[in-house]
């Protein structure tokens, strides 16, 4: 039976015949440990070449082994002179009288040796976990059990949250009607919104102006501009959008919110005109209310002229 170490020795010494090469290839493909051993041997070549010319690794190893043999108890058999698997091939015998190359600089890097640079990136957590599991295989079933339990608990939690019985764990979300909001006006204040709306009115962009008025009323109902937005919207609905019913509501909202405002007679006049345009039954009462509440106003004068 051919030993793997012998095949490696033959490979590294260059004496590997084709049949042995095929066998070694099969071993390397089937055993990861064998591949790692061979890689370690290749890596060990570098420090050997980096060593000083006077420093012989084989001598060092031999000295250490001799010391171990000397300290070994007498009952233990001495170590063989040469291990069956010697990863370090014996260095070429150099005659002592041969002159040593004095001025030849020793290669100091892997690049100088023509080898690729070693990767020094730290291992990731997954790689560390894989190494630990490789070293401690008894942890594998425990880790698998932990993963299964965690998955089950997550599944149960999800089932309890989202697939509950009659009563859902989370109250259903009631969707509120979202009024159209122009993206460019979201950051504007009430003052700017009113200016934008009236600018739109001046440009005959009546639908946009109405949206801006409504957005102002929705976002800033208590602002000083809200009253003017209410009046502006009402006038727009009555005179431009041909919606007298909505205009009457807007004027009524203004009168309800600001009954003592300076512009209340104007709003009452607009409401009467809107009700009359809408054909409602309250138009006559609205005209009379102007006469009663604001008798000295221009609105009352217009009301008398109208009748």
């Amino acid at each position, binding site marked *: 039976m051919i030993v793997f170490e012998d095949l490696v020795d033959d490979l590294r010494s260059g004496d590997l015949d084709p049949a042995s090469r095929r066998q070694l290839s099969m071993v390397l493909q089937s055993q990861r440990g064998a591949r790692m051993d061979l890689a370690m041997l290749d890596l060990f070549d570098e420090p050997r070449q980096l060593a000083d010319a006077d420093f012989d690794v084989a001598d060092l190893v031999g000295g250490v082994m001799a010391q171990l043999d000397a300290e070994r108890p007498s009952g233990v058999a001495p170590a063989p002179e040469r291990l069956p698997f010697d990863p370090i091939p014996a260095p070429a015998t150099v005659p002592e009288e041969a002159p040593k190359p004095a001025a030849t600089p020793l290669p100091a890097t892997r690049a100088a040796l023509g080898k690729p640079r070693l990767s020094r990136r730290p291992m990731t957590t997954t790689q560390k976990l894989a190494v630990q599991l490789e070293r401690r295989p008894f942890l594998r079933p425990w880790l698998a059990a932990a993963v299964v339990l965690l998955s089950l608990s997550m599944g149960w939690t999800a089932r309890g949250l989202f697939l509950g019985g009659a009563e859902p764990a989370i109250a259903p979300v009631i969707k509120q009607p979202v009024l159209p909001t122009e993206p460019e006006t979201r950051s504007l204040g009430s*003052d*700017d919104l*009113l*200016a934008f709306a*009236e600018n739109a009115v*001046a440009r005959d962009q009546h639908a946009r102006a109405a949206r801006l008025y409504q957005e102002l009323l929705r976002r800033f109902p208590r602002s*000083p*501009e809200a*009253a*003017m937005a209410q*009046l*502006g919207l009402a*006038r727009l609905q009555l005179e431009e959008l041909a919606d007298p019913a909505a205009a009457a509501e807007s004027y009524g909202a203004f009168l309800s919110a600001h009954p003592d405002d*300076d*512009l209340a*007679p*104007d709003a009452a*006049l607009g409401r009467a005109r809107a009700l009359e345009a809408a054909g409602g039954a309250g138009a006559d009462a609205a005209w009379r209310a102007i006469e009663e509440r604001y008798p000295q*106003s*221009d*609105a009352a*004068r*217009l009301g008398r002229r109208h009748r």
Partner: protein
Amino acid sequence: MIRAALSAALVLSFATPIAASAQDSAEITLVGQSIRPSVVRYLRAQLEELGVAIRTTRHARDARGALVVRVARRSASIASREGSELVEVRSVSLPHGLDTAGRARLAHALRTVVRARRP
């Protein structure tokens, strides 16, 4: 030829004051020390449909037109010309001066006043 020219000049001399009087009746003068041009532009745009011209002056003695609006810091008074005198017909409060809401208040009030004085 000379007679025709003199006749035309005579006619024009009578016609000009009449035209000026008609223009004055459709004119609103804003009286104030610091009325911004943006306010004037806004009022012109708002009252354009009524065919009203807007002009400004710093002193009331220079005011002409049928309506004179004296703009103070927190209010505005609208006066109507009755013969040679100005009679105040309405007052509008301006809580924050002639800001966006204030000029809108003034425009709403002026619209009603102008309509009430139209035949």
